[in-house]
Protein backbone atom coordinates (compact mmCIF):
# COMPACT_ATOMS: atom_id res chain seq x y z
CA UNK A 1 0.00 0.00 0.00
CA UNK A 2 2.07 2.92 -1.25
CA UNK A 3 -0.09 5.66 0.26
CA UNK A 4 0.35 4.19 3.74
CA UNK A 5 4.12 4.12 3.23
CA UNK A 6 4.03 7.74 2.23
CA UNK A 7 2.02 8.60 5.31
CA UNK A 8 4.44 6.88 7.69
CA UNK A 9 7.41 8.54 6.01
CA UNK A 10 5.73 11.89 6.46
CA UNK A 11 5.21 11.13 10.12
CA UNK A 12 8.90 10.43 10.64
CA UNK A 13 10.17 13.58 8.93
CA UNK A 14 10.82 16.59 11.18
CA UNK A 15 7.85 18.88 11.15
CA UNK A 16 6.73 21.95 13.03
CA UNK A 17 4.10 21.76 15.74
CA UNK A 18 1.25 23.23 13.69
CA UNK A 19 2.02 20.95 10.83
CA UNK A 20 1.86 17.91 13.11
CA UNK A 21 -1.50 19.05 14.45
CA UNK A 22 -2.78 19.41 10.91
CA UNK A 23 -1.41 16.00 10.00
CA UNK A 24 -3.01 14.39 13.05
CA UNK A 25 -6.29 16.01 12.27
CA UNK A 26 -6.12 14.86 8.70
CA UNK A 27 -5.26 11.33 9.77
CA UNK A 28 -8.16 11.12 12.15
CA UNK A 29 -10.57 12.57 9.61
CA UNK A 30 -9.48 10.17 6.91
CA UNK A 31 -9.67 7.08 9.10
CA UNK A 32 -13.17 6.40 7.86
CA UNK A 33 -12.17 5.65 4.30
CA UNK A 34 -9.44 3.19 5.22
CA UNK A 35 -10.41 -0.47 4.99
CA UNK A 36 -11.03 -1.96 8.41
CA UNK A 37 -13.68 -2.78 10.97
CA UNK A 38 -15.87 0.09 9.80
CA UNK A 39 -16.48 -1.73 6.54
CA UNK A 40 -17.67 -4.90 8.26
CA UNK A 41 -20.06 -2.94 10.47
CA UNK A 42 -21.45 -1.19 7.42
CA UNK A 43 -22.11 -4.39 5.53
CA UNK A 44 -23.67 -6.04 8.59
CA UNK A 45 -25.92 -3.05 9.05
CA UNK A 46 -26.84 -2.98 5.37
CA UNK A 47 -27.63 -6.69 5.43
CA UNK A 48 -29.78 -6.34 8.54
CA UNK A 49 -31.69 -3.43 7.06
CA UNK A 50 -32.18 -5.35 3.81
CA UNK A 51 -33.49 -8.39 5.69
CA UNK A 52 -35.95 -6.25 7.60
CA UNK A 53 -37.19 -4.68 4.38
CA UNK A 54 -37.34 -7.99 2.54
CA UNK A 55 -39.12 -9.55 5.51
CA UNK A 56 -42.11 -7.26 5.13
CA UNK A 57 -42.46 -8.20 1.48
CA UNK A 58 -42.06 -11.90 2.27
CA UNK A 59 -44.67 -11.64 5.00
CA UNK A 60 -47.13 -9.98 2.64
CA UNK A 61 -46.48 -12.58 -0.08
CA UNK A 62 -46.83 -15.43 2.39
CA UNK A 63 -50.11 -14.04 3.66
CA UNK A 64 -51.58 -13.71 0.18
CA UNK A 65 -50.29 -17.18 -0.74
CA UNK A 66 -51.82 -18.76 2.37
CA UNK A 67 -55.14 -17.01 1.86
CA UNK A 68 -55.24 -18.12 -1.77
CA UNK A 69 -54.29 -21.67 -0.92
CA UNK A 70 -56.95 -22.00 1.73
CA UNK A 71 -59.57 -20.26 -0.38
CA UNK A 72 -59.01 -22.75 -3.19
CA UNK A 73 -61.93 -25.09 -2.30
CA UNK A 74 -64.35 -22.18 -2.57
CA UNK A 75 -62.74 -20.81 -5.73
CA UNK A 76 -63.01 -24.26 -7.33
CA UNK A 77 -66.61 -24.75 -6.25
CA UNK A 78 -68.02 -21.31 -7.17
CA UNK A 79 -65.53 -19.71 -9.56
CA UNK A 80 -66.23 -16.13 -10.54
CA UNK A 81 -69.85 -16.62 -9.51
CA UNK A 82 -68.71 -16.23 -5.91
CA UNK A 83 -68.55 -12.44 -6.18
CA UNK A 84 -71.86 -12.11 -8.02
CA UNK A 85 -73.97 -14.58 -6.09
CA UNK A 86 -76.21 -13.31 -3.31
CA UNK A 87 -76.72 -16.75 -1.77
CA UNK A 88 -75.26 -17.35 1.69
CA UNK A 89 -76.45 -20.73 2.88
CA UNK A 90 -74.08 -22.59 5.19
CA UNK A 91 -76.61 -25.40 5.65
CA UNK A 92 -76.63 -26.28 1.97
CA UNK A 93 -73.01 -25.31 1.46
CA UNK A 94 -73.84 -22.58 -1.01
CA UNK A 95 -71.89 -19.36 -0.76
CA UNK A 96 -71.85 -16.00 -2.53
CA UNK A 97 -70.06 -12.83 -1.45
CA UNK A 98 -72.04 -10.04 -3.09
CA UNK A 99 -74.17 -8.97 -0.09
CA UNK A 100 -71.03 -8.68 2.01
CA UNK A 101 -69.08 -6.76 -0.60
CA UNK A 102 -72.13 -4.50 -0.98
CA UNK A 103 -72.47 -3.97 2.77
CA UNK A 104 -68.76 -3.26 3.21
CA UNK A 105 -68.46 -0.83 0.32
CA UNK A 106 -71.75 1.00 0.87
CA UNK A 107 -71.32 1.40 4.64
CA UNK A 108 -67.80 2.75 4.11
CA UNK A 109 -68.85 5.14 1.34
CA UNK A 110 -71.82 6.39 3.38
CA UNK A 111 -69.42 6.91 6.28
CA UNK A 112 -67.10 8.92 4.05
CA UNK A 113 -70.03 10.95 2.77
CA UNK A 114 -70.82 12.01 6.33
CA UNK A 115 -67.29 12.20 7.72
CA UNK A 116 -65.40 14.05 4.98
CA UNK A 117 -67.32 17.35 5.01
CA UNK A 118 -67.39 17.35 8.81
CA UNK A 119 -63.70 16.52 9.11
CA UNK A 120 -62.70 19.18 6.60
CA UNK A 121 -64.80 21.68 8.54
CA UNK A 122 -63.03 20.68 11.74
CA UNK A 123 -59.64 20.84 10.05
CA UNK A 124 -60.27 24.24 8.47
CA UNK A 125 -61.57 25.66 11.74
CA UNK A 126 -58.71 24.27 13.82
CA UNK A 127 -55.97 25.26 11.39
CA UNK A 128 -57.24 28.65 10.23
CA UNK A 129 -59.89 30.18 12.43
CA UNK A 130 -59.83 28.83 15.99
CA UNK A 131 -58.35 31.21 18.58
CA UNK A 132 -55.02 29.86 19.81
CA UNK A 133 -56.30 29.04 23.31
CA UNK A 134 -58.91 26.74 21.79
CA UNK A 135 -56.70 25.00 19.23
CA UNK A 136 -54.86 22.50 21.40
CA UNK A 137 -57.73 21.38 23.65
CA UNK A 138 -60.13 21.02 20.74
CA UNK A 139 -57.53 19.20 18.65
CA UNK A 140 -56.86 16.87 21.57
CA UNK A 141 -60.53 16.01 21.98
CA UNK A 142 -60.83 15.17 18.30
CA UNK A 143 -57.73 12.99 18.46
CA UNK A 144 -59.04 11.27 21.60
CA UNK A 145 -61.99 10.02 19.53
CA UNK A 146 -59.44 7.86 17.72
CA UNK A 147 -58.31 6.29 20.97
CA UNK A 148 -61.73 4.90 21.95
CA UNK A 149 -61.81 1.10 21.39
CA UNK A 150 -64.20 0.10 18.64
CA UNK A 151 -66.16 -2.23 20.93
CA UNK A 152 -67.02 0.82 23.02
CA UNK A 153 -68.30 2.56 19.91
CA UNK A 154 -70.32 -0.58 19.19
CA UNK A 155 -71.89 -0.62 22.63
CA UNK A 156 -72.69 3.06 22.49
CA UNK A 157 -74.12 2.46 19.04
CA UNK A 158 -76.43 -0.31 20.23
CA UNK A 159 -77.70 1.36 23.38
CA UNK A 160 -77.75 5.02 22.40
CA UNK A 161 -77.33 5.64 18.71
CA UNK A 162 -79.45 2.87 17.17
CA UNK A 163 -82.54 3.55 19.33
CA UNK A 164 -82.20 7.25 18.63
CA UNK A 165 -81.85 6.68 14.89
CA UNK A 166 -84.67 4.13 14.88
CA UNK A 167 -87.13 6.27 16.83
CA UNK A 168 -86.34 9.75 15.60
CA UNK A 169 -84.02 10.24 12.66
CA UNK A 170 -84.96 7.37 10.38
CA UNK A 171 -88.76 7.76 10.68
CA UNK A 172 -88.30 11.48 10.03
CA UNK A 173 -86.23 10.95 6.88
CA UNK A 174 -88.45 8.09 5.79
CA UNK A 175 -91.54 10.22 6.34
CA UNK A 176 -90.28 13.16 4.34
CA UNK A 177 -88.14 11.54 1.68
CA UNK A 178 -89.85 8.16 1.51
CA UNK A 179 -90.46 8.68 -2.18
CA UNK A 180 -86.81 7.91 -2.80
CA UNK A 181 -86.26 4.12 -2.63
CA UNK A 182 -83.10 4.32 -0.51
CA UNK A 183 -85.11 5.89 2.32
CA UNK A 184 -88.18 3.68 1.96
CA UNK A 185 -89.17 0.68 4.04
CA UNK A 186 -89.32 -0.30 7.70
CA UNK A 187 -86.82 1.20 10.12
CA UNK A 188 -85.17 -0.85 12.84
CA UNK A 189 -82.45 1.45 14.15
CA UNK A 190 -79.88 -1.25 13.73
CA UNK A 191 -78.85 -1.54 10.08
CA UNK A 192 -76.59 -0.26 7.31
CA UNK A 193 -77.25 3.38 8.18
CA UNK A 194 -76.47 2.98 11.89
CA UNK A 195 -73.22 1.20 11.03
CA UNK A 196 -72.29 4.01 8.64
CA UNK A 197 -72.94 6.69 11.25
CA UNK A 198 -70.69 4.98 13.77
CA UNK A 199 -68.04 4.41 11.12
CA UNK A 200 -68.21 8.10 10.25
CA UNK A 201 -67.63 9.06 13.88
CA UNK A 202 -64.72 6.62 14.04
CA UNK A 203 -62.92 7.98 10.99
CA UNK A 204 -63.47 11.68 11.71
CA UNK A 205 -60.39 11.92 13.95
CA UNK A 206 -58.14 10.31 11.33
CA UNK A 207 -59.32 12.51 8.48
CA UNK A 208 -59.50 15.74 10.43
CA UNK A 209 -56.16 15.35 12.24
CA UNK A 210 -54.18 14.67 9.06
CA UNK A 211 -56.01 17.33 7.03
CA UNK A 212 -55.46 19.86 9.80
CA UNK A 213 -51.74 19.13 9.74
CA UNK A 214 -51.41 19.66 5.99
CA UNK A 215 -53.53 22.81 6.13
CA UNK A 216 -51.41 24.16 8.96
CA UNK A 217 -48.30 23.61 6.85
CA UNK A 218 -49.45 25.96 4.11
CA UNK A 219 -47.10 28.92 4.46
CA UNK A 220 -48.27 32.30 5.68
CA UNK A 221 -47.07 34.09 2.56
CA UNK A 222 -49.48 32.06 0.43
CA UNK A 223 -52.38 33.11 2.65
CA UNK A 224 -51.19 36.72 2.66
CA UNK A 225 -51.05 36.65 -1.13
CA UNK A 226 -54.77 35.92 -1.18
CA UNK A 227 -55.61 38.31 1.66
CA UNK A 228 -53.77 41.17 -0.03
CA UNK A 229 -56.00 40.68 -3.08
CA UNK A 230 -59.03 41.32 -0.88
CA UNK A 231 -59.96 37.69 -0.28
CA UNK A 232 -62.35 37.05 2.61
CA UNK A 233 -61.31 34.40 5.16
CA UNK A 234 -63.23 31.69 3.29
CA UNK A 235 -61.88 32.83 -0.08
CA UNK A 236 -58.37 32.70 1.39
CA UNK A 237 -58.92 29.09 2.43
CA UNK A 238 -60.33 28.22 -0.97
CA UNK A 239 -57.67 30.03 -2.96
CA UNK A 240 -54.48 29.53 -0.99
CA UNK A 241 -54.95 26.75 1.56
CA UNK A 242 -57.06 23.97 0.03
CA UNK A 243 -55.20 23.60 -3.30
CA UNK A 244 -51.85 23.17 -1.56
CA UNK A 245 -53.28 20.87 1.10
CA UNK A 246 -55.15 18.68 -1.39
CA UNK A 247 -52.65 15.80 -1.64
CA UNK A 248 -52.62 15.53 2.15
CA UNK A 249 -56.41 15.68 2.34
CA UNK A 250 -56.76 12.89 -0.22
CA UNK A 251 -54.29 10.81 1.76
CA UNK A 252 -56.29 11.47 4.91
CA UNK A 253 -59.57 10.44 3.27
CA UNK A 254 -58.01 7.20 2.03
CA UNK A 255 -56.65 6.36 5.45
CA UNK A 256 -60.13 6.94 6.82
CA UNK A 257 -61.67 4.78 4.12
CA UNK A 258 -59.18 2.02 4.88
CA UNK A 259 -60.18 2.09 8.50
CA UNK A 260 -63.88 2.01 7.63
CA UNK A 261 -63.51 -0.93 5.23
CA UNK A 262 -61.70 -3.07 7.76
CA UNK A 263 -63.60 -2.06 10.89
CA UNK A 264 -65.11 -5.19 12.41
CA UNK A 265 -66.39 -4.93 15.94
CA UNK A 266 -68.54 -1.80 15.84
CA UNK A 267 -69.98 -2.75 12.46
CA UNK A 268 -70.80 -6.29 13.58
CA UNK A 269 -72.70 -4.86 16.52
CA UNK A 270 -74.70 -2.40 14.45
CA UNK A 271 -75.12 -3.47 10.84
CA UNK A 272 -77.85 -6.04 11.57
CA UNK A 273 -75.92 -9.04 10.22
CA UNK A 274 -78.33 -10.06 7.52
CA UNK A 275 -76.80 -11.09 4.17
CA UNK A 276 -79.30 -9.27 1.99
CA UNK A 277 -79.05 -6.46 -0.49
CA UNK A 278 -81.91 -4.07 0.18
CA UNK A 279 -82.76 -0.88 -1.61
CA UNK A 280 -83.17 0.91 1.72
CA UNK A 281 -80.12 2.11 3.63
CA UNK A 282 -82.12 1.65 6.83
CA UNK A 283 -82.37 -2.12 6.30
CA UNK A 284 -80.02 -4.53 8.03
CA UNK A 285 -77.01 -5.67 6.01
CA UNK A 286 -73.73 -7.47 6.55
CA UNK A 287 -70.06 -6.71 5.92
CA UNK A 288 -67.08 -8.86 4.98
CA UNK A 289 -65.20 -8.20 8.20
CA UNK A 290 -68.33 -8.86 10.27
CA UNK A 291 -69.21 -12.16 8.66
CA UNK A 292 -65.67 -13.45 9.05
CA UNK A 293 -65.58 -12.45 12.69
CA UNK A 294 -68.97 -13.83 13.57
CA UNK A 295 -68.94 -17.11 11.60
CA UNK A 296 -65.41 -18.46 11.57
CA UNK A 297 -65.62 -19.83 15.12
CA UNK A 298 -68.66 -21.96 14.25
CA UNK A 299 -67.41 -23.26 10.93
CA UNK A 300 -67.73 -27.04 10.72
CA UNK A 301 -67.41 -27.60 7.04
CA UNK A 302 -64.35 -27.04 4.80
CA UNK A 303 -66.09 -25.19 2.03
CA UNK A 304 -67.65 -22.70 4.46
CA UNK A 305 -64.19 -21.94 5.85
CA UNK A 306 -62.79 -21.61 2.33
CA UNK A 307 -65.59 -19.17 1.45
CA UNK A 308 -64.78 -17.01 4.49
CA UNK A 309 -61.11 -17.02 3.57
CA UNK A 310 -61.86 -16.06 0.00
CA UNK A 311 -63.83 -13.13 1.39
CA UNK A 312 -60.81 -12.11 3.43
CA UNK A 313 -58.86 -12.15 0.19
CA UNK A 314 -61.50 -9.96 -1.47
CA UNK A 315 -61.33 -7.47 1.41
CA UNK A 316 -57.56 -7.41 1.05
CA UNK A 317 -57.85 -6.74 -2.68
CA UNK A 318 -60.42 -3.95 -2.19
CA UNK A 319 -58.23 -2.23 0.40
CA UNK A 320 -55.06 -2.58 -1.67
CA UNK A 321 -56.78 -1.36 -4.81
CA UNK A 322 -58.16 1.71 -3.01
CA UNK A 323 -54.77 2.45 -1.52
CA UNK A 324 -53.10 2.25 -4.92
CA UNK A 325 -55.77 4.45 -6.44
CA UNK A 326 -55.25 7.01 -3.69
CA UNK A 327 -51.51 6.93 -4.17
CA UNK A 328 -51.94 7.61 -7.87
CA UNK A 329 -54.29 10.49 -7.10
CA UNK A 330 -51.86 12.00 -4.60
CA UNK A 331 -48.97 11.58 -7.04
CA UNK A 332 -50.90 13.21 -9.81
CA UNK A 333 -51.91 16.26 -7.80
CA UNK A 334 -48.61 16.28 -5.92
CA UNK A 335 -46.39 16.19 -8.99
CA UNK A 336 -48.00 19.32 -10.34
CA UNK A 337 -47.15 21.05 -7.09
CA UNK A 338 -43.52 19.88 -7.03
CA UNK A 339 -43.04 20.76 -10.66
CA UNK A 340 -44.26 24.24 -9.93
CA UNK A 341 -41.94 24.54 -6.94
CA UNK A 342 -38.93 23.22 -8.82
CA UNK A 343 -37.57 26.66 -9.62
CA UNK A 344 -37.16 29.03 -6.70
Amino acid at each position, binding site marked *: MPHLARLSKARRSPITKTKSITANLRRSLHRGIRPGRGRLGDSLFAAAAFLAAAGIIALMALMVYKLMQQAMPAVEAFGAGFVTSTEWDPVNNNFGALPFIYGTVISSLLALLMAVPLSLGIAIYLSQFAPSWLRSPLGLVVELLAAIPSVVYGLWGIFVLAPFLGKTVEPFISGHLGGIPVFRGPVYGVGLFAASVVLAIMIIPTISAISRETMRNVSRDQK*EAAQALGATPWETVKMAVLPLARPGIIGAVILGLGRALGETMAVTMLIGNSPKISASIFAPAYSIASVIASEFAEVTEGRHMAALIEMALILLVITLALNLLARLLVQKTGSRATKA*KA*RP
Partner: protein
Amino acid sequence: MAGHVTTSSLSASFGDIQAIDDVTVEIPANKVTAIIGPSGCGKSTFLRCLNRMHELVPGAKISGEVVWDGKNIYGPGMDATEVRRGIGMVFQKPNPFPLMSVEENVSAGIRLTGGRMSKAMVAEIVEHSLRLAALWDEVKNKLHKPGGGLSGGQQQRLCIARALAVQPDIILMDEPCSALDPASTQKIEDTIDKLKQNFTIVIVTHNMQQAARVSDSTGFMLAREMGDPGRMIEYGPTNKIFTMPDRKETENYITGRFG
Protein backbone atom coordinates in the same frame (compact mmCIF):
# COMPACT_ATOMS: atom_id res chain seq x y z
CA MET B 1 -56.61 62.23 -7.84
CA ALA B 2 -57.27 58.92 -6.15
CA GLY B 3 -54.70 57.26 -3.97
CA HIS B 4 -53.92 59.90 -1.40
CA VAL B 5 -53.16 58.62 2.10
CA THR B 6 -52.67 60.42 5.38
CA THR B 7 -51.82 58.75 8.64
CA SER B 8 -52.28 60.52 11.92
CA SER B 9 -50.89 59.32 15.26
CA LEU B 10 -50.68 55.81 13.89
CA SER B 11 -49.41 53.30 16.45
CA ALA B 12 -49.32 49.54 16.14
CA SER B 13 -48.28 46.65 18.36
CA PHE B 14 -48.05 42.88 18.53
CA GLY B 15 -49.37 41.83 21.94
CA ASP B 16 -47.26 43.75 24.45
CA ILE B 17 -44.59 44.80 21.98
CA GLN B 18 -45.17 48.15 20.38
CA ALA B 19 -43.82 48.17 16.84
CA ILE B 20 -44.51 51.73 15.70
CA ASP B 21 -45.48 54.82 17.61
CA ASP B 22 -47.25 57.99 16.58
CA VAL B 23 -46.55 58.09 12.86
CA THR B 24 -48.11 61.04 11.09
CA VAL B 25 -47.32 61.40 7.40
CA GLU B 26 -48.98 62.48 4.20
CA ILE B 27 -48.44 60.25 1.19
CA PRO B 28 -49.20 62.08 -2.05
CA ALA B 29 -51.11 60.44 -4.89
CA ASN B 30 -49.29 59.28 -8.03
CA LYS B 31 -45.93 59.53 -6.41
CA VAL B 32 -43.46 56.97 -5.14
CA THR B 33 -42.86 57.18 -1.43
CA ALA B 34 -39.99 55.21 0.07
CA ILE B 35 -39.72 54.17 3.69
CA ILE B 36 -36.17 53.46 4.81
CA GLY B 37 -34.58 52.55 8.11
CA PRO B 38 -32.56 49.84 9.83
CA SER B 39 -33.98 46.38 10.57
CA GLY B 40 -36.60 46.34 13.29
CA CYS B 41 -37.56 49.98 12.90
CA GLY B 42 -41.17 49.07 12.14
CA LYS B 43 -41.20 50.08 8.48
CA SER B 44 -42.87 46.82 7.34
CA THR B 45 -45.41 47.11 10.15
CA PHE B 46 -46.14 50.68 9.08
CA LEU B 47 -46.71 49.48 5.53
CA ARG B 48 -48.98 46.66 6.67
CA CYS B 49 -51.09 49.15 8.65
CA LEU B 50 -51.86 51.01 5.44
CA ASN B 51 -53.99 48.18 4.00
CA ARG B 52 -55.11 46.46 7.20
CA MET B 53 -52.78 43.49 6.76
CA HIS B 54 -51.27 44.11 10.19
CA GLU B 55 -54.48 43.14 11.98
CA LEU B 56 -54.30 39.61 10.53
CA VAL B 57 -51.47 38.73 12.90
CA PRO B 58 -52.87 37.33 16.18
CA GLY B 59 -52.56 39.86 18.99
CA ALA B 60 -52.12 42.83 16.67
CA LYS B 61 -53.42 46.21 17.85
CA ILE B 62 -53.67 49.51 16.05
CA SER B 63 -54.59 53.03 17.08
CA GLY B 64 -54.70 56.28 15.20
CA GLU B 65 -56.07 56.95 11.76
CA VAL B 66 -55.23 56.06 8.19
CA VAL B 67 -57.26 58.23 5.86
CA TRP B 68 -57.44 57.08 2.26
CA ASP B 69 -59.09 59.59 -0.06
CA GLY B 70 -61.08 61.07 2.78
CA LYS B 71 -62.15 57.84 4.47
CA ASN B 72 -60.57 56.44 7.64
CA ILE B 73 -59.84 52.82 6.68
CA TYR B 74 -60.20 51.82 10.34
CA GLY B 75 -63.43 53.71 10.68
CA PRO B 76 -66.77 52.03 11.45
CA GLY B 77 -68.38 50.31 8.50
CA MET B 78 -65.12 49.96 6.58
CA ASP B 79 -64.60 46.47 5.21
CA ALA B 80 -61.00 45.24 5.46
CA THR B 81 -61.25 43.17 2.27
CA GLU B 82 -62.57 46.24 0.43
CA VAL B 83 -59.60 48.25 1.71
CA ARG B 84 -57.13 45.58 0.58
CA ARG B 85 -58.70 45.50 -2.86
CA GLY B 86 -58.08 49.22 -3.24
CA ILE B 87 -54.63 49.13 -1.64
CA GLY B 88 -52.70 46.19 -3.07
CA MET B 89 -49.51 44.69 -1.77
CA VAL B 90 -46.34 43.05 -3.08
CA PHE B 91 -44.27 41.07 -0.62
CA GLN B 92 -40.59 40.60 0.09
CA LYS B 93 -40.53 37.01 -1.10
CA PRO B 94 -42.25 36.42 -4.45
CA ASN B 95 -45.37 34.43 -3.58
CA PRO B 96 -47.28 33.44 -6.72
CA PHE B 97 -49.84 30.67 -6.23
CA PRO B 98 -47.71 27.67 -7.23
CA LEU B 99 -50.53 25.51 -8.57
CA MET B 100 -52.07 28.24 -10.71
CA SER B 101 -50.91 29.11 -14.20
CA VAL B 102 -49.49 32.53 -15.03
CA GLU B 103 -52.87 33.62 -16.29
CA GLU B 104 -54.76 32.25 -13.29
CA ASN B 105 -52.32 33.99 -10.97
CA VAL B 106 -52.96 37.37 -12.55
CA SER B 107 -56.73 36.88 -12.69
CA ALA B 108 -56.95 35.44 -9.14
CA GLY B 109 -58.04 38.77 -7.67
CA ILE B 110 -60.65 39.64 -10.29
CA ARG B 111 -62.13 36.17 -10.11
CA LEU B 112 -62.63 36.78 -6.38
CA THR B 113 -64.88 39.77 -6.79
CA GLY B 114 -67.54 37.32 -7.86
CA GLY B 115 -68.95 39.46 -10.63
CA ARG B 116 -69.41 37.69 -13.95
CA MET B 117 -66.72 38.78 -16.34
CA SER B 118 -66.45 37.59 -19.89
CA LYS B 119 -63.43 35.52 -20.84
CA ALA B 120 -62.32 38.21 -23.28
CA MET B 121 -62.54 40.82 -20.54
CA VAL B 122 -60.45 38.71 -18.18
CA ALA B 123 -57.90 38.04 -20.92
CA GLU B 124 -57.69 41.75 -21.62
CA ILE B 125 -57.10 42.63 -17.96
CA VAL B 126 -54.49 39.86 -17.70
CA GLU B 127 -52.59 41.14 -20.71
CA HIS B 128 -52.85 44.76 -19.59
CA SER B 129 -51.58 43.94 -16.10
CA LEU B 130 -48.72 41.82 -17.40
CA ARG B 131 -47.71 44.61 -19.76
CA LEU B 132 -47.78 47.16 -16.92
CA ALA B 133 -45.55 44.83 -14.90
CA ALA B 134 -43.19 44.53 -17.90
CA LEU B 135 -43.65 40.78 -17.97
CA TRP B 136 -45.92 40.28 -20.98
CA ASP B 137 -43.23 39.69 -23.59
CA GLU B 138 -41.55 37.07 -21.45
CA VAL B 139 -44.66 35.06 -20.59
CA LYS B 140 -47.11 35.60 -23.46
CA ASN B 141 -46.29 32.12 -24.78
CA LYS B 142 -46.56 30.39 -21.42
CA LEU B 143 -49.70 31.89 -19.95
CA HIS B 144 -50.92 28.41 -19.10
CA LYS B 145 -47.68 27.19 -17.50
CA PRO B 146 -47.45 27.19 -13.68
CA GLY B 147 -46.57 30.57 -12.23
CA GLY B 148 -44.10 28.92 -9.89
CA GLY B 149 -42.00 27.85 -12.88
CA LEU B 150 -40.81 31.40 -13.63
CA SER B 151 -37.51 32.82 -12.39
CA GLY B 152 -37.46 34.73 -9.12
CA GLY B 153 -37.51 38.13 -10.80
CA GLN B 154 -40.31 37.09 -13.14
CA GLN B 155 -42.27 35.70 -10.20
CA GLN B 156 -42.02 39.04 -8.43
CA ARG B 157 -43.25 40.89 -11.53
CA LEU B 158 -46.04 38.31 -11.77
CA CYS B 159 -47.00 39.25 -8.21
CA ILE B 160 -46.98 42.92 -9.23
CA ALA B 161 -49.25 42.09 -12.20
CA ARG B 162 -51.52 40.12 -9.87
CA ALA B 163 -51.78 43.13 -7.57
CA LEU B 164 -52.40 45.49 -10.50
CA ALA B 165 -55.18 43.35 -11.99
CA VAL B 166 -57.67 44.27 -9.25
CA GLN B 167 -57.21 47.95 -10.23
CA PRO B 168 -56.08 49.32 -6.87
CA ASP B 169 -55.34 53.00 -6.23
CA ILE B 170 -52.26 52.28 -4.19
CA ILE B 171 -49.62 49.57 -4.26
CA LEU B 172 -47.58 48.80 -1.19
CA MET B 173 -44.26 47.08 -1.77
CA ASP B 174 -42.45 45.45 1.11
CA GLU B 175 -38.78 45.16 0.11
CA PRO B 176 -39.81 43.79 -3.28
CA CYS B 177 -36.23 43.40 -4.54
CA SER B 178 -34.42 42.06 -1.51
CA ALA B 179 -34.61 38.47 -2.81
CA LEU B 180 -33.65 39.38 -6.38
CA ASP B 181 -30.48 39.80 -8.45
CA PRO B 182 -29.41 43.24 -9.75
CA ALA B 183 -30.84 42.71 -13.27
CA SER B 184 -34.28 41.77 -11.90
CA THR B 185 -34.08 44.65 -9.44
CA GLN B 186 -33.45 47.02 -12.31
CA LYS B 187 -36.53 45.74 -14.14
CA ILE B 188 -38.71 46.19 -11.09
CA GLU B 189 -37.42 49.70 -10.52
CA ASP B 190 -38.20 50.58 -14.15
CA THR B 191 -41.67 49.15 -13.63
CA ILE B 192 -42.21 51.24 -10.51
CA ASP B 193 -41.19 54.33 -12.41
CA LYS B 194 -43.83 53.67 -15.07
CA LEU B 195 -46.52 52.67 -12.62
CA LYS B 196 -46.61 55.97 -10.79
CA GLN B 197 -48.52 57.54 -13.66
CA ASN B 198 -51.54 55.53 -12.63
CA PHE B 199 -50.85 54.38 -9.11
CA THR B 200 -49.58 55.64 -5.80
CA ILE B 201 -46.66 53.53 -4.64
CA VAL B 202 -45.26 53.10 -1.16
CA ILE B 203 -42.09 51.06 -1.07
CA VAL B 204 -40.22 49.82 1.98
CA THR B 205 -36.60 49.18 1.25
CA HIS B 206 -33.36 48.32 2.95
CA ASN B 207 -31.47 49.71 0.04
CA MET B 208 -30.86 53.45 0.31
CA GLN B 209 -29.66 53.73 -3.28
CA GLN B 210 -32.93 52.19 -4.38
CA ALA B 211 -34.92 54.68 -2.34
CA ALA B 212 -32.90 57.52 -3.83
CA ARG B 213 -33.40 56.15 -7.36
CA VAL B 214 -37.11 55.43 -7.38
CA SER B 215 -38.84 57.69 -4.88
CA ASP B 216 -40.20 61.21 -4.81
CA SER B 217 -40.51 61.40 -1.04
CA THR B 218 -38.73 59.41 1.62
CA GLY B 219 -39.49 58.64 5.22
CA PHE B 220 -36.79 57.58 7.61
CA MET B 221 -37.88 55.38 10.49
CA LEU B 222 -35.86 54.43 13.53
CA ALA B 223 -36.31 52.60 16.80
CA ARG B 224 -33.99 54.33 19.24
CA GLU B 225 -33.08 51.19 21.11
CA MET B 226 -33.87 47.51 20.92
CA GLY B 227 -37.46 47.04 22.03
CA ASP B 228 -38.39 50.66 21.47
CA PRO B 229 -41.17 51.31 18.97
CA GLY B 230 -40.19 52.68 15.59
CA ARG B 231 -40.89 56.34 14.91
CA MET B 232 -40.91 58.39 11.76
CA ILE B 233 -37.80 60.47 12.36
CA GLU B 234 -37.95 62.51 9.22
CA TYR B 235 -40.21 62.64 6.21
CA GLY B 236 -39.84 64.81 3.15
CA PRO B 237 -38.80 65.10 -0.50
CA THR B 238 -36.23 62.43 -1.39
CA ASN B 239 -33.75 65.04 -2.61
CA LYS B 240 -33.76 66.84 0.66
CA ILE B 241 -33.57 63.70 2.82
CA PHE B 242 -30.54 62.44 0.95
CA THR B 243 -28.67 65.74 0.58
CA MET B 244 -29.50 67.90 3.57
CA PRO B 245 -31.56 66.09 6.16
CA ASP B 246 -32.77 68.11 9.13
CA ARG B 247 -32.07 65.43 11.68
CA LYS B 248 -28.74 64.12 12.85
CA GLU B 249 -30.03 60.51 12.96
CA THR B 250 -31.09 60.68 9.33
CA GLU B 251 -27.71 61.99 8.30
CA ASN B 252 -25.93 59.25 10.26
CA TYR B 253 -28.01 56.58 8.59
CA ILE B 254 -27.73 58.04 5.10
CA THR B 255 -23.99 58.36 5.36
CA GLY B 256 -23.72 54.77 6.49
CA ARG B 257 -22.63 55.39 10.05
CA PHE B 258 -25.01 52.70 11.29
CA GLY B 259 -27.79 50.40 10.15
